[in-house]
Each structure stands twice: as structure tokens, then as C-alpha cells.
């Protein structure tokens, strides 16, 4: 009971009832306290009830309050018996305990629920938004000039909120420079760089034109570097490792590839340009040329100017011949006409010369090419001729030899045969030597090739393993991070939970009680079983008794008609039976009476705990008071 009382008192305290510290059990609750706490419970459960929170002094008012409390509690569904004003005003410990247990059950569980909510990210976010919003709204409105360019600081809870837009700026970043490797002793910085770093380079916060661009510029520099690094890592991990080159090699090859691409593209474009498909570009070039001509003419004398223009034009002509041809008359606008015409004539003459010279050049080029081609052909012919000549010579020598040897034909044939045999032999030995030499070399070659392919496959396997390991590393890093976050959340939740209600002790006690009840149930079952067996024995014994008695009775009765002593014996038997019957009855009655005694004792106990006497006294007192009040009110009414 103590535990229950403590729990009840604790929950009542937690909803705001004002209970003194030393009140630990329901026995110590006075009537006022009971009424106040019940009213508070009802208010918390259903907040729209209008209940006074303390007992009014007037008796009739008290009566009404008690009745209304009883009604409300019954409306909530209390099934523990009849309630009336008497349960609150003239209280009885067990009933009060039951009522409080019922009310505490009914208390809304929101307060406990919020502490047990799983801390999902959306809930956390929602809570953060609510707190921020309530913080912001707790400040009252101030006009613009009282804010520091739109920012407003709060003191509690400390922070700031933005209530204007005049302080906002755009994200504008400028490139920044920082010294690299000044402290690194392995890389040698050139002297100029170091002196630049030391004397001229401004500090990073002083590098942007406007101070407010500092933060974006620094952030941008960092983000750029991180992005480049990540790009490089992904590229290296996917393509670079597979290509099996070192990092520098890989980078060098990539750069070469890109340069080649750029060069090809530029060449293509310039070739397209040469073919004259870009009239606008030509116009630009014309403009440049005319401006240069104008410069040339205005600054210098006539002849010099013309020569200057002449040399300029020749220079351009070396680069773009056709452009010159399409130039046409680049007529300047602000010089004397005669000079112009003369220069034009010169220009034309020179151009004609140029044309002639270039066409001659072309012709000569063509001829040179033709000659080289024919020369090559001739070379080839010579070579074939020489080859055939050699063959013919060889055939001739053979024939000559045979002719010489013909006179001594047989001896020579024999000699020749011997020579042929010996040379065949030699060939065979040579072939054998070659084979013996070749074998081990081929073996070695095969072995090395196998080794090589093995190593390739091993390298590939290792690469695969590296990739798998990397992926697992990332996964485990992620897991570790997630678990750490979870741990932080749970730790903070645990710290937030109230510790004054010792849940583990309660759970332990509950489990103990459950075990006890189980044991008791077992014992009760045993006793029931015993009782049943005893009952059965009694039944069987009484049955046996009856049967034996009837048997004996009959037997003796049969003999009793003839013999006197048998009659006496029969009478004695009957008396014996009767006496034992009455004995059995008395024993049964004793049992019944003992049971009644026990019941009555229990009743006495329960009644005595209801403190009927004191309540009766109180009731009679209150009745007196009510009567007095009534008479007083009647007098007042009559008096008016």
C-alpha cells in the first residue's frame, strides 16, 4: 500500500497539486486536501470544468462541491461503487485510494508521451522551428531605426533575428591568393616568389576590393579546392588505377591528350577560315589592315609610308596568301589622292609581281615533285634490273662450273655427291644444335609470359580488393558516424528524463508481486486439491459407515427376534450409531461456526477502518451547522 500511495502522491505532485513534503500516504490526507487534489485532477483531465480548488467554508457550499465532484468522477466512468458527497467529505481510506487510482489512470498522458517520443529528424526540426518562432515572437516590435541595420539582438534566450533586408548582400567572390609551401622545407621556393609572399602579397582579409566579399571569396576558394580534389580522386579511382600508370604519368598523358585535342580543333578552324567561309572575320582583318595603313600614312612621309605599308602587306601576305588576294582595294580615307593612286599603282604592280612569282614557285614545286616521283620510279627499276642481273650471273656461274666439270664427269659426280652428303650432314648437325639452343630459350619465354600474365591477374585482383576495401571503409565510417549521432541523441534524451521516479525499483517490485501471486495460486490449488481429496474420503467413509450399519442392523435385527442378548446388542448398536451421528453433526457445526467467526472478524476489521464513529460525529456537527445556516438565510430572506 505504501508504494501505491507514494506513486499516487508523486503523480498528484507532478500535475501541480500542492501537497506538503511529509505527506506520504493517503491516510494523512485531510478533507480539504482530498477535495483540492480531486478538483485539480478533474481539471487536468478535462479542462473545461469549473471547479473550486479549495473547500468553501459554508456547509451547504461544501455539500454542493462534494456532490459535484462525485458526479464528475462518476461521469468519467468510475465503477468502484456509489459515490456521493460523503466519499469526499467524510472520507474512507480504501475508497479514496481507489478513487485516486482511477483518476491517476485517467490523467492525460501527454506529458509522459512527449518524453518518450522517438527523436526522428522531422520531430527535431519541428521542435527547433517552434522554439525559434516562440523566441522571435517573444520580442515586441521596434521601428527600423532602433535595429542595427535590420539585425536585432535578444538577450534571453541569447541570439539574434533578422527583421529587415537592408543588410543583405549578394554572394560575390573574388579570387584570392595565399602563400603555398613557405614552411615546407622539402620544396624550394624561388627567391622571387618568396620575396613576393613576404613583402607584397596582402593578407587574405585585405585582398578583396570590398570587405564584405572576403567571406564568400575564402569559402569559394576552399570549396573549389575540395571539389577539384574530389574530382581527381574519383577519376583516379575509376580510370587511373586501371591504367596502371603512376600519377604523374597519368596526368602527363591526360595533358598531352587535351593539348592535342585543342591543337586539332584550332587547325580545323583555321583551315575552315582559309577556305573563306568567314566573311565577318575577313572584314575584321580588313579593318585591322586599314587602321594599320592609316597609322602608317599619317605618321610618316609619302614614300616611307608607302614602303611601310608595303612591308606590312608583304608580311601579311606570307601568312595568308588568299586573304591578300581578296583584300581588294583597301582605300584609306584621309590622304591626298595622287599619293593614293601612285601607291595603288605600286601596290598593283607589286601584287602582279607577287602573283607571277608565286605562280612560278608553284610550277617549280610541281615539277620538283614530278621529278622526285620519277626518280623514285627509276630507282625501283634499277633495283629490279640489278636483281635480275645477279640472278643471271649466278645461273651463269653454275652453268660454267658444270661445263668445266663435265669432262671428268663421274669423278666429279662422285665428288659432288660427297660434297652434297657432307653438306647435308652439316645441315643436320646445325639443325640439332639450333634445336638444343632454341629449346631452353622457348621454355624461358613461356615461363616469363606466364609469370607476366599471373602478375597481371594478381594486380587486377588486388585492385578489386582495394576498391572493395575502400567501399567498406566508407560504409563503416558512415555507420560509425550514425551510431555516434544516435548515441548523442540517446544520451541527451536520457539526461533529460526525470530520475525521481525509480522505474527499475517499481518494475522489480511488480515482478516480485507477480511471482508471489503465482506461488500463492499454486498453494491455493494444492489446498483445493487436498480439500477435494479429504471430501472424497469423507464421502467414501460415510458411505462405508452407512452400508456397514445397515448390514449389521439387518443381521442383528434378524437375530434380535429370537435372542434377548442380541436385542440388547441391537439397542446398543443403535445408540452407538446415534451418538456417533450427533458427534459428526457437532463437528460439522463447529466447523461452520468457526468459519462464521472468521467472516465476522473480517467484517469488524473493515468496518473499524472506515472510522464510522468519527464520521458520524462530523456528520452530526455538519448537520447542525447546515441547520444553523439555513435558519440564518431564512431570517435574512424574511428580514428583507
Amino acid at each position, binding site marked *: 500500500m505504501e508504494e501505491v500511495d507514494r506513486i499516487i502522491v508523486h503523480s498528484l505532485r507532478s500535475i501541480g497539486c500542492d501537497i506538503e513534503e511529509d505527506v506520504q500516504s493517503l491516510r494523512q490526507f485531510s478533507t480539504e486536501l482530498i477535495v483540492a487534489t480531486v478538483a485539480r485532477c478533474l481539471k487536468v483531465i478535462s479542462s473545461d470544468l469549473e471547479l473550486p480548488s479549495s473547500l468553501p467554508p459554508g456547509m451547504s457550499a461544501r455539500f454542493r462541491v462534494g456532490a459535484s465532484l462525485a458526479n464528475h468522477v462518476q461521469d468519467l466512468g468510475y465503477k468502484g461503487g456509489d459515490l456521493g458527497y460523503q466519499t469526499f467529505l467524510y472520507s474512507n481510506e480504501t475508497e479514496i485510494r481507489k478513487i485516486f487510482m482511477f483518476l491517476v489512470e485517467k490523467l492525460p498522458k501527454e506529458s509522459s508521451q512527449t518524453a518518450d517520443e522517438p527523436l526522428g529528424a522531422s520531430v527535431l526540426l*519541428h*521542435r527547433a*522551428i*517552434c522554439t525559434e*518562432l*516562440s523566441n522571435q*515572437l517573444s520580442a515586441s516590435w521596434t*521601428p*527600423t531605426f532602433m535595429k542595427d*541595420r*535590420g*539585425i536585432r539582438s535578444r538577450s534571453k534566450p541569447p*541570439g*539574434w533575428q*533578422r*527583421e*529587415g*533586408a*537592408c*543588410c*543583405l*548582400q*549578394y*554572394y560575390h567572390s573574388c579570387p*584570392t591568393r*595565399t*602563400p*603555398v*609551401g*613557405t*614552411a*615546407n622545407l622539402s620544396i624550394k621556393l624561388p627567391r622571387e616568389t*618568396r620575396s613576393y*609572399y*613576404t*613583402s607584397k*602579397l*596582402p*593578407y*587574405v*582579409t*585585405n585582398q578583396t576590393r570590398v*570587405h*564584405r566579399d*572576403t*567571406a*564568400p571569396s*575564402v*569559402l569559394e*576558394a*576552399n570549396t*573549389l*579546392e*575540395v571539389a*577539384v*580534389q574530389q574530382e581527381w580522386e574519383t577519376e583516379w579511382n575509376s580510370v587511373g588505377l586501371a591504367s596502371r600508370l603512376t600519377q604523374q604519368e597519368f596526368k602527363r598523358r591526360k595533358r598531352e591528350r587535351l593539348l592535342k585535342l585543342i591543337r586539332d580543333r584550332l587547325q580545323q578552324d583555321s583551315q575552315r577560315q582559309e577556305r573563306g567561309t568567314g566573311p565577318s572575320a575577313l572584314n575584321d582583318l580588313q579593318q585591322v589592315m586599314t587602321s594599320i595603313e592609316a597609322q602608317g600614312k599619317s605618321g610618316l612621309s609619302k614614300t616611307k609610308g608607302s614602303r611601310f605599308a608595303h612591308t606590312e602587306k608583304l608580311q601579311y601576305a606570307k601568312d595568308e596568301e588568299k586573304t591578300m588576294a581578296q583584300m581588294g582595294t583597301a582605300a584609306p580615307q584621309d590622304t591626298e589622292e595622287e599619293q593614293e593612286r601612285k601607291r595603288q599603282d605600286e601596290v598593283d604592280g607589286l601584287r602582279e609581281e607577287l602573283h607571277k612569282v608565286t605562280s612560278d614557285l608553284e610550277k617549280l614545286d610541281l615539277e620538283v615533285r614530278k621529278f622526285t616521283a620519277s626518280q623514285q620510279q627509276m630507282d625501283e627499276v634499277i633495283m629490279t634490273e640489278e636483281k635480275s642481273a645477279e640472278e643471271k650471273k649466278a645461273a651463269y656461274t653454275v652453268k660454267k662450273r658444270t661445263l668445266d666439270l663435265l669432262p671428268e664427269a663421274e669423278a666429279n659426280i662422285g665428288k659432288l655427291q660427297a660434297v652434297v652428303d657432307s653438306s647435308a650432314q652439316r645441315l643436320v648437325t646445325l639443325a640439332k644444335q639450333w634445336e638444343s639452343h632454341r629449346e631452353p630459350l622457348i621454355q624461358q619465354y613461356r615461363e616469363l609470359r606466364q609469370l607476366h600474365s599471373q602478375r597481371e591477374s594478381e594486380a587486377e585482383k588486388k585492385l578489386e580488393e582495394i576498391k572493395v576495401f575502400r567501399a567498406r571503409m566508407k560504409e563503416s565510417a558512415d555507420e560509425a558516424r550514425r551510431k555516434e549521432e544516435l548515441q548523442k541523441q540517446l544520451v541527451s534524451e536520457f539526461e533529460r528524463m526525470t530520475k525521481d521516479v525509480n522505474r527499475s525499483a517499481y518494475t522489480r517490485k511488480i515482478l516480485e508481486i507477480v511471482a508471489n501471486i503465482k506461488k500463492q495460486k499454486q498453494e491455493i490449488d494444492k489446498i483445493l486439491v487436498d480439500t477435494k481429496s479429504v471430501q472424497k474420503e469423507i464421502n467414501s467413509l460415510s458411505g462405508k459407515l452407512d452400508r456397514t450399519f445397515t448390514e449389521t442392523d439387518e443381521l442383528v435385527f434378524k437375530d434380535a427376534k429370537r435372542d434377548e442378548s442380541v436385542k440388547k446388542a441391537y439397542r446398543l448398536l443403535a445408540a452407538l450409531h446415534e451418538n456417533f451421528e450427533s458427534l459428526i453433526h457437532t463437528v460439522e457445526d463447529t466447523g461452520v461456526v468457526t468459519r462464521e467467526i472468521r467472516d465476522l472478524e473480517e467484517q469488524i476489521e473493515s468496518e473499524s477502518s472506515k472510522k464510522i464513529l468519527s464520521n458520524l460525529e462530523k456528520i452530526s456537527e455538519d448537520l447542525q451547522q447546515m441547520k444553523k445556516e439555513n435558519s440564518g438565510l431564512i431570517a435574512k430572506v424574511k428580514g428583507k
Partner: protein
Amino acid sequence: MELGSSILENISVAGDAAHISDKAFISLVQAACQGVLLEEHRNAVAENPAFKDTDKAILKEAYSGLVTLILEAAKHDSSEQNISSVLEDCKFTTDRISSFAKEFLPQKPHVQLLLGKISSSFPHIVDVDWRLDYYIKNNHLEKVNSAVYLISLKTEVPGSNDIQEVQFSCSLEQLQDLVGKLKDATKCMEKLTQG
């Protein structure tokens, strides 16, 4: 919080006692915070007497590393643990880590305020003026006899200190409609504060 490798190098230079002494380190952190926050202290590092003996190139490198660290830590709202782990990777001693945290963490909200100002917005209403007229007649119509409100919303625009006004007129019903909608918005907000 991710920092580029050259920036980590810069920070390591800042943490290296051989290049920057402990006292100079504390002043360097303070100067870095001030240099980021206040325009007049942009170049205060150059004139600070605490760095007289330090090689300027090394000082500039360390300074830029610390400035980047300060801005990135404020951007990600890093806790002291995160910053400590980054600094440990850069081989800082625990003393230097704690002194950095001591100098930086009080300034973090100010740097966050500075970073929070980098954004754009629509014209932001800060105040409202109203005027109630009674419209009697015009040159086409007599006996108009209706109430007209002239409402002027004062707005602040990013970047300029002036207040721009948005003016319009309302009849009584239109103003009731407007006020009704604004009250809806207010109620929605108040409901949110209660969770």
C-alpha cells in the same frame, strides 16, 4: 566540414610551434576573427606588434589557413569536438586546440551572423502607414460616399539603406479581406509556437 589539402597545410603551419609561438598564436587567432568580422580590422594583422619576429610569408600562410577554418567552422556550425578532430589531423597540440576553441567559440555567433547576411530576399516589410479618406464625389459621379483607405507598406530592399514604399488603396471590404488573411497567417504562426 571539408577543407582542401593546401588549407590543411596552412593550418598546420599555424599550429607549428617552430614558426608561430604560443602567444603569437593566440593573437593570430584573435586577429583572424577580427579581420573577418570588422572592416576596419581587415589589415590589422599587418600592424600587430605581436608578429614582429615572425616571417611574413609564414604569417600570411598561417593567417589565411585560420581565416578559412574560422569561416568553414561557422558555416557548418561545428561543435568543439569537430573542430578539435580537424585540428588534431593538422597536428595541433591539445593546448593550441583549447586556446583556439576559447578564442573562436565566443565569436562564432558573430561570424554566423555575418554569413547569414549573405543572401537575397524580396522587399521586406518593416512598417505600415495608413490613411482613411472619405470619398465624396468625382467629376463623373456624384454622391459616391464611400470610405477609402490608403495603405503604404514600408519595405527594405537588400543593399540599400532607403525605405521603398508600396502604396495601394482599399475599400472597407478589401481591407477587411486583407486583415482577415493577415490574421490567418498570424494564427497559423501562433499555433506553430505551441507545437
